[in-house]
């Protein structure tokens, strides 16, 4: 492989693009749709729309889904445990940000 000269690439902010449907989220995470359903049941992801076909996920769902996937695989926890872990991690992150500003 030759040394490549760096190209300047422009991308799009995924979260600002049109929302994802269940199929697109499946492809981005490379998982089965049943897995997405389990996450929605556990409250990890909150799509708009009533039925699976109508579900639309905000772009931010991708980051959550990827985190959920790695927690499940690496730590062996189920969707309910992942939901709790994500909620606590978000609270910790907010508290850490406040501590940082206070100089701790």
């Amino acid at each position, binding site marked *: *492989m030759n040394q*490549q000269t760096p190209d300047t690439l422009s*991308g799009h902010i995924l979260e600002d693009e049109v929302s994802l449907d269940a199929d697109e989220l499946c492809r981005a995470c*490379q*998982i089965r749709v049943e897995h997405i359903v389990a996450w929605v049941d556990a409250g990890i992801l909150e799509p708009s729309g009533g039925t699976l076909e109508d579900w639309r996920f905000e*772009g931010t769902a991708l980051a959550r889904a*990827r985190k959920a996937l790695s927690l499940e695989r690496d730590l062996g926890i189920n969707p309910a445990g992942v939901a709790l872990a994500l909620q606590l991690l978000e609270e910790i992150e907010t508290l850490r940000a406040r501590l940082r500003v206070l100089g701790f």
Partner: protein
Amino acid sequence: MEYKDYYQTLGLSRQAKPEEIKRAYRKLARKYHPDVSKAADAETRFKEIQEAYTVLKNPEKRQAYDHLGADWKTGQDFHAPPNWAQGSTYRSNPPGTGTGGFSDFFETLFGGGYRSGPRQSHHGHGEDIHTKIQIPLEDAYHGATRSLVLQIPKLDSQGIPRVRERHLNVHIPPGVRAGQHIRLTGQGGEGLGGGPRGDLYLEVLFMPHNLYRSEGRDVYLDLPITPWEAALGASVKAPTPGGVVDLKIPKNSGTGTKLRLKGRGIPGHPPGSLYVILRIVLPPADTDKARAIYRTMREELAFNPRAHMGV
């Protein structure tokens, strides 16, 4: 190549039972998982733990590893035995295209690369690559071009996994927020059988900033002010990620008073707000003059901040 002591990595004896191995892995994984831990070396430690567990949880891999003998120490120079690869049944993992794999030691012994990401899709679509990019908060205001080095494991012509570095310059669009992804279409793994290339996803993180913190589109700043600025009101200069602004402090402000500067948060539609949180800083009483002023305040101001406590 350096030997790796997988038992030491997981804090186990060489006689550990499978359930002990699993427990040790789970415990360490919870401690060092990069999504959970904020320790600077969490990602490295977690990779090491995963590598050790990948070998020790698998009876064939573990047996082969144990066969190398117990006298090796981590970091010792190591060469694989000549007949190592013959007849082994587990050399089936295709190479992954994540961002950094396991050690050379692992690659040589258990070969074929390790797939940390999800499986290839069956459409011949190239694999999507996910990685993170850390940028200063200011980039979200002004946009920027940042360079990035991707480490892509790939098989060479002899079928040996090698890490290839790919240098990219990426345009950071103004308005991007922490946790969002920049999608670079067609910059992921190569497609199979003429299939389209995968995409590259960059998760955006802000570097820790000594002045600002962000929550979504909103940005927070703690601003020190003097007691007289707080009491009498004033116009002071305040830093913002978009540049210095003149800020009007209302009279009778206190510590914790929150001032909202609409539209001064991260740009967008709508833009976020900048919240300035006031902190009153007392001048030190380290001169006769300063002490005299404090004494005057004590005598002239009937002020008891503990009145509501009934004392």
